[in-house]
């Protein structure tokens, strides 16, 4: 701020003091507020007074809407005239697991139409669990000349033709991030649609796609986009092709390989190893489909500065993982398949003292006969070696209360604790007791806990604990748990910061549902499916809370989608 401006504003403060108005000139206030990035801060700021509300809305360039049904695009555009970047989330999270019917909604098109009229200079669009058609993608591509970044995560309704439209028309594109979508993969020719003159791409992620892409086009594209930082290939790209790409893009910070299994000559192997290790800036490595021990060695030199390693598509054995991890001292985030077993996790504990996040996915989730995988022992081993662990997603087939108590004692800083004991309603396998004490220990010890997924045999006691102790909990996922309405009532009566509650197959009924009326005002969404809620209960809820979006489907998951004003929108989360 200029000193003269400062003086002016001080004068105006003095002169207006009696009027008790906020007397920063708008420009100053806007300037200051434009430095605010956090949505929570912005929400708080907008509540101070009318002037601040206005200054905030004029200075906001990014809007995050966690529930696309909570507000209409017209209202958004009216309130925030200067948006350049939009993040929208649509379907309930359980749609990832096929619990939401097709054609449920969350279509982006209506939003795009409004944006085209009100935000012609829109630059970024990030969608999660929205439905988007090829027509919408084409509309997007031609309506926003400044468009830079498109990120689609868990969306559906489009095909590679839509991507072709983006590639063709978006001259200023810097980011194309296609993740885990229900995409109709017609073919890889969309990549060739980037014009020869196009050089601005920094982020390209098409790992989602299955069909072969035009490698020649890709190679040329990567070659001329010298600012490319993130490149995530799909399976169809071979090791040999990977090497050719890397040679032209040693500046990459994040790499997702293609298929990591191919018969290579010694020279080809050495070239690959060299190309990988030349990526001095590489901190994230993923892909690695079907990686086997022989070729993993090519990664060793490249792993020195790695902070995030995603091995969740490579069915490694424990020894292979151990050898690899010996070369990854800086690792903060690790995703693996449970083929590494407890022994592999012991190696994690030994080699990765800086680890903050661990996700262990099941290789055989639907096969009860085969009991590989990890047990409580692996988790405990990691907790001893990695005291900084704060994010865990753990799929296992057995767990004990004692083990969880030990784990949280070793790692009290958990913010995200997602434990999935894969057999529904399974007790502590040693004591045969419910797993109540496990989650009791979690919520008691981990005071920073924001997200919790529970599993195993659970009585209402678990929810008593959660309601009583989980003061910072924002997201709770419950399945096959609880004994009575009391459980859900405890959660709704406690947990002051609860935002998202998703429940399936629990004996919670109307009494529980209706006990949370006050709570729902401050929540983003509630999902209940296959519980004991009836249509009447939903009707009552809708009547009592007219501002709520209540959607109930007889016999189907009853998803209650709650109005949340944009003031209350929250930060993006890590799914």
């Amino acid at each position, binding site marked *: 701020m200029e000193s003269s401006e400062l003086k002016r504003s001080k004068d105006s403060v003095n002169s207006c003091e009696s009027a008790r108005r906020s007397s920063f000139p708008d420009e100053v206030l806007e300037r200051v507020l434009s430095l605010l990035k956090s949505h929570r801060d912005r929400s708080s700021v907008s509540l101070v007074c009318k002037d601040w509300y206005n200054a905030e809305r004029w200075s906001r360039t990014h809007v995050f809407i966690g529930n696309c*049904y909570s507000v209409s695009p017209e209202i958004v555009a009216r309130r925030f005239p200067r948006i350049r970047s939009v993040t929208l989330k649509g379907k309930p999270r359980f749609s*990832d*697991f*096929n*619990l*939401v*019917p*097709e*054609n*449920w*909604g969350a279509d982006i098109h*209506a939003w795009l139409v409004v944006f085209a009229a009100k935000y012609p200079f829109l630059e970024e669009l990030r969608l999660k669990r929205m439905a988007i058609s090829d027509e919408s993608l084409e509309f997007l591509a031609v309506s926003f000349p400044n468009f830079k970044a498109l990120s689609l995560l868990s969306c*559906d309704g489009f095909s590679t033709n839509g991507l072709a439209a983006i590639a063709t028309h978006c001259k200023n594109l810097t980011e194309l991030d296609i993740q*885990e979508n*229900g*995409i*109709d*993969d017609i073919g890889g020719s969309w990549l060739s649609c980037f014009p020869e003159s196009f050089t601005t791409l920094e982020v390209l992620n098409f790992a*989602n796609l*299955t069909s072969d892409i035009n490698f020649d086009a890709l190679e040329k594209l990567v070659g001329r986009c010298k600012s490319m930082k993130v490149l995530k290939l799909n399976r169809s790209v071979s090791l040999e092709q990977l090497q050719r790409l890397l040679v032209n893009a040693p500046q990459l910070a994040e790499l997702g390989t293609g298929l990591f299994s191919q018969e290579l000559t010694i020279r080809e192997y050495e070239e690959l190893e060299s190309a990988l290790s030349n990526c001095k800036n590489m901190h994230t490595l993923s892909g690695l*489909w*079907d990686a086997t021990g022989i070729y993993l060695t090519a990664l060793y030199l490249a792993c020195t500065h790695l902070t995030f390693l995603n091995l*969740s*598509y490579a069915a490694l054995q424990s020894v292979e993982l151990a050898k690899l991890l010996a070369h990854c001292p800086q690792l903060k985030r690790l995703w693996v398949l449970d083929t590494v*077993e407890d022994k592999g996790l012991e190696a994690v504990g030994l080699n990765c003292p800086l680890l903050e996040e661990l996700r262990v*996915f*099941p*290789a*055989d*989730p*639907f*096969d*009860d*006969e*085969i009991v*590989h995988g990890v*047990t409580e*022992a692996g988790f405990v081993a990691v907790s001893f070696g990695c005291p900084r662990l704060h994010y865990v997603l753990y*799929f296992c087939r057995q767990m004990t209360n004692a083990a969880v108590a030990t784990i949280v004692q070793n790692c009290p800083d958990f913010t995200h604790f997602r434990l*999935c004991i*894969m057999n*529904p309603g399974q007790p502590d396998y040693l004591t045969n007791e419910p797993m109540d004490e496990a989650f009791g220990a979690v919520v008691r010890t981990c005071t920073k806990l924001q997200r919790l997924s529970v599993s195993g045999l659970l009585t209402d006691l678990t929810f008593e604990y959660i309601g009583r102790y989980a003061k910072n909990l924002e997201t709770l996922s419950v399945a*096959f748990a609880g004994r009575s309405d009391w459980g859900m009532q405890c959660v709704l009566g406690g947990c002051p910061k609860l935002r998202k509650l998703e429940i399936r*197959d629990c004996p919670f009924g109307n009494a529980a549902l209706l006990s949370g009326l006050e709570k729902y005002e401050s929540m983003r969404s509630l999902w209940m499916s*296959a519980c*004991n809620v*009836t*249509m*009447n209960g939903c*009707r009552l809820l*809708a009547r009592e809370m007219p501002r709520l*979006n*209540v*959607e*109930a*489907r*007889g*016999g*189907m998951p009853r998803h209650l*989608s709650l109005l949340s004003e944009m003031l209350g929108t929250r930060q993006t989360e890590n799914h």
Partner: protein
Amino acid sequence: MSTPLEHDYIGLAETSSVERSSEKIPSSSSSSSSSSIPSIEDKTSRTTNDTYLNLKETELSLGLPGSQPPERKLSLFGKDLETNDKSNGFPGCPLKNLVSGAKRGFSDAIDGYNGKWVFSMNGKSDVELAKGAVLASPRGGLDAKSNSQQPRTSVSVMKQAVGVPQSPKPVQDEQNLVPPVNEHASAPAAKAQVVGWPPIRSFRKNSMTSNLAKNSDEGAGCIYVKVSMDGAPYLRKVDLKTYNNYMDFSSALEKMFSCFTIGQCNSNGLPARDGLSESRLMDLLHGSEYVLTYEDKDGDWMLVGDVPWEMFTDSCRRLRIMKGSEATTLAPRAMEKCKNQN
């Protein structure tokens, strides 16, 4: 938009949406034995009228812009399916290797699969199946029938009919019914499958299955086969591609199964690292107590070691470490070889 017929793992096509359920299961349904269809139809026709009315009446779609109630499929009740589907639910789908009491193999809807994979039921009856399925809840139109005021009571279940994801992938990818690893089409495990559980995202599920499809088509990648050992509490799975010869393979198996024979495991079931136990297992395997056998693609059980390694990996579908006394069921030639080796 017409909804494609879904096939659940029993192979019964599910009806389309409630509004259209009066159309019933089309005769073109490729699924189950005829005895099952009428009862399911009856059930659905009984409920549809009620359901239809109720749905219209109680429909709450506040805030959903311009949408019709999405099409639903009625799920089929486990009870019906259990009683009607003891037999193969897939007409025209010859099940090889069908062990009595085993689950049906997967339907012909799965392309590109060489054979059928049959899970042994391990003695579980359908009654137990129902019990096991208690934890999963029923879905479908019956919730919205006239007694919607009451809490649901029925708990038998098969999979919930939910919308078909829009991927072009074959039918088996829709639900969580596809066993993720094995190049063969598989029936799900003896327990009833629950929709959306465990919570694995579609992309990950599809990746696993597309891996399988690739393997069976190209013959490259991994060849996972199950290895069971008589008397062991659970199976293991091995990737035959990771071994180059019988020597490597058998020593790997020894390591894997030594804990069962010796009984020296820690609580995790990890094999003991005692070198002694490995050599003891060698003795056991090469001696008379255990015999390593495999099931080939014709369904015959053969002794491991008869054929060149590559031929073995090509034809091996499943492995079993048999007690020597049971090996008499092997083909005579195999037995001859076995005796000669001993």
